[in-house]
């Protein structure tokens, strides 16, 4: 019977072209949405690689066209750290986790280029403040003061791409295309530690290879804005935030400060990331509903056009239920043609390594989209098939 159904659908391919196209486009949309959702869910379930809870971001501004001397900034850090409820403070660059500020670059080690990596400035307390998990080596320390190269800590994924299975600690790498002539010591990066891969963009983003460059103490850089990560004791709230603001003002009244809770910034970023995803899902859903209604209508029409055939098949020995299953089976065959075409297209994504994603989410999305399309078409075909099953053969044959 299956061969018969395939023959029938194949011979009716022109008439079924619309249905096959609808199934194909539904599959493609579901595959796209599925790939996005599966990737987001997979990322969401992966660890962040650091602990964002009980961490605040203190932003200190010197004022327009003003710079802050490092000595006074260090004074602020010391005084904030001394406040009751503050566990540790760490000076860092503006690209703190979950905010819309990134700094990335490509590095090179013995002619081998790294993937695009996030670059963070971090002082000796950053690792402790973010509770990064060290896999190898150590975080920066005062003992690095005398180093001839810029000490860096790198993430595990960057380590794998640059050094493979070989040792990473003590290796020196540079920016991509360091230029001719001897490199400056601050542009040569000495690996002192390796931490777990981190996901600092959003809850739904994948881990990005990362480099933390050591902020050298007592340098002469004068910043307009300083970003300070403050790890606080559990239960700390607005009172401590006010104290921190007063402390900053106490060092110099010209400076302004703002304290933000990192967890709130995470939730804000999550919302920002979710909105387009939800929008995509709603659009996909409307499309699928439209397709489902279209399928339903076409099937209904098909059955009304094929009443004589139904009567004939009943006369030849088909049961009512058999007729219902035949129509359902035909729809499944049509779906198979659409799904096969869609799979041909979807398979190009993992084969071409599109969007630098691994093959797994794509393969899962292909499976999920196929299952969903079969479910939707079966659902749409169910009622018309029941209608076909209920047609009385004598009546159907008489109508002809």
């Amino acid at each position, binding site marked *: 019977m299956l061969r018969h159904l395939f023959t029938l659908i194949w011979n009716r391919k022109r008439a079924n072209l619309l249905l096959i196209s609808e199934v194909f486009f539904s599959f493609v949309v579901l595959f796209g949405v599925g790939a996005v959702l599966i990737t987001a869910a997979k990322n969401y379930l992966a660890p962040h690689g650091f602990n964002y809870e009980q961490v605040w971001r203190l932003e200190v501004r010197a004022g327009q066209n003003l710079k802050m001397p490092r000595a006074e900034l260090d004074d602020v850090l010391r005084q904030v750290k001394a406040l009751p409820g503050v566990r540790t403070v760490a000076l860092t660059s503006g690209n703190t986790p979950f905010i819309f500020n990134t700094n990335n670059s490509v590095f090179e080690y013995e002619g081998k280029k790294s993937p695009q990596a996030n670059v963070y400035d971090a002082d000796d307390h950053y690792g402790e403040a973010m509770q990064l998990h060290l896999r190898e080596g150590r975080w920066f320390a005062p003992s690095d003061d005398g180093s001839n190269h810029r000490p860096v800590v790198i993430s595990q994924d960057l380590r794998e791409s640059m050094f493979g299975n070989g040792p990473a600690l003590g290796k020196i790498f540079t920016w991509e295309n360091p230029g001719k002539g001897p490199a400056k010591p601050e542009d040569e990066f000495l690996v002192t530690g390796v931490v777990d891969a981190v996901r600092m963009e959003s809850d739904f983003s994948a881990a990005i290879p990362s480099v933390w460059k050591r902020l050298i103490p007592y340098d002469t850089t004068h910043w307009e804005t300083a970003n300070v990560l403050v790890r606080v004791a559990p239960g700390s709230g607005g009172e401590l935030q006010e104290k921190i603001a007063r402390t900053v003002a106490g060092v110099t009244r010209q400076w302004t400060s703002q304290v933000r809770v990192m967890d709130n910034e995470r939730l804000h970023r999550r919302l920002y990331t979710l909105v387009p995803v939800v929008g995509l899902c709603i659009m996909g859903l409307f499309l699928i509903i439209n397709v489902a209604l279209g399928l339903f209508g076409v099937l209904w029409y098909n059955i009304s056009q094929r009443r004589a055939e139904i009567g004939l098949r009943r006369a*030849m020995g088909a049961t009512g239920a058999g007729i219902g299953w035949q129509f359902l089976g035909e729809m499944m065959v049509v779906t198979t043609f659409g799904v096969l075409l869609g799979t041909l297209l979807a398979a190009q994504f993992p084969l071409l390594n599109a969007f630098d994603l691994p093959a797994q989410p794509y393969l899962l999305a292909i499976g999920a989209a196929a299952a969903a399309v079969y479910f939707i078409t079966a659902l749409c075909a169910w009622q018309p098939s029941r209608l076909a099953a209920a047609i009385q053969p004598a009546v159907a044959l008489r109508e002809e």
Partner: protein
Amino acid sequence: MENLLATSSHTRSQPLNGATDALPVLRLTNIEKVYQTKTIETVALNQVNLTINRGEFVSVMGPSGCGKSTLLSLMGLLDEPTRGTIEVDGRTVQSYSDRELANLRNLKIGFVFQSYHLINDLSVVDNVEVPLLYRKGMGGKERRQRALDALDKVGLSARTGHFPGQLSGGQRQRVAIARALAGGPEIILADEPTGNLDSVMGEEIMDLLLGLNRQDGVTIVMVTHDEQQALKTQRVVRFFDGSQVG
């Protein structure tokens, strides 16, 4: 039911070679068929008693609307009578389930329709295979062979790959007869099989049916308006306003 199907299978494999042994293959007793709507009650058949013997060729005649097609639907187990009993091979089929009736139709009855009822999107041989698709335990090769044999019998061996749209009316009706024959039925119910054909083609089809009856012993009940054709059959049953008048 089991015995009935077993008997029919045996019969198919051993054709009767034209012998009319006067055993009733189909018996209708006190049949009434009433179509009821909210406002109108239409009596399509009234107190019909009819026996069809094995190997007979019976014509059913009467004016339009006299109940001929209704009678054929009842004989073909496509419809249920309002009152009365239908027996196939001596067994009353009223209590049969949809599945049992479908099996019985598939094994014992072949249908030929005035408008052929071929599936236009299937080739000739695929059309002939249709009744065999519903036969349990029959493989694809056997189906194909039986379909080809049936087409050979009706002289259409050279047209197996054609589609109905590529055939003449007479050829289409031959395909329909081959389809009815493919399952090796005991009875062929033909509803005005020459009604859509010109006289030459009508004669060809009539000769084919007569040959099947005389040489292969197939029982045939044919509804017709053509007196000349009816006279070629063994018995003519006449209807008027739902009642048997002769």
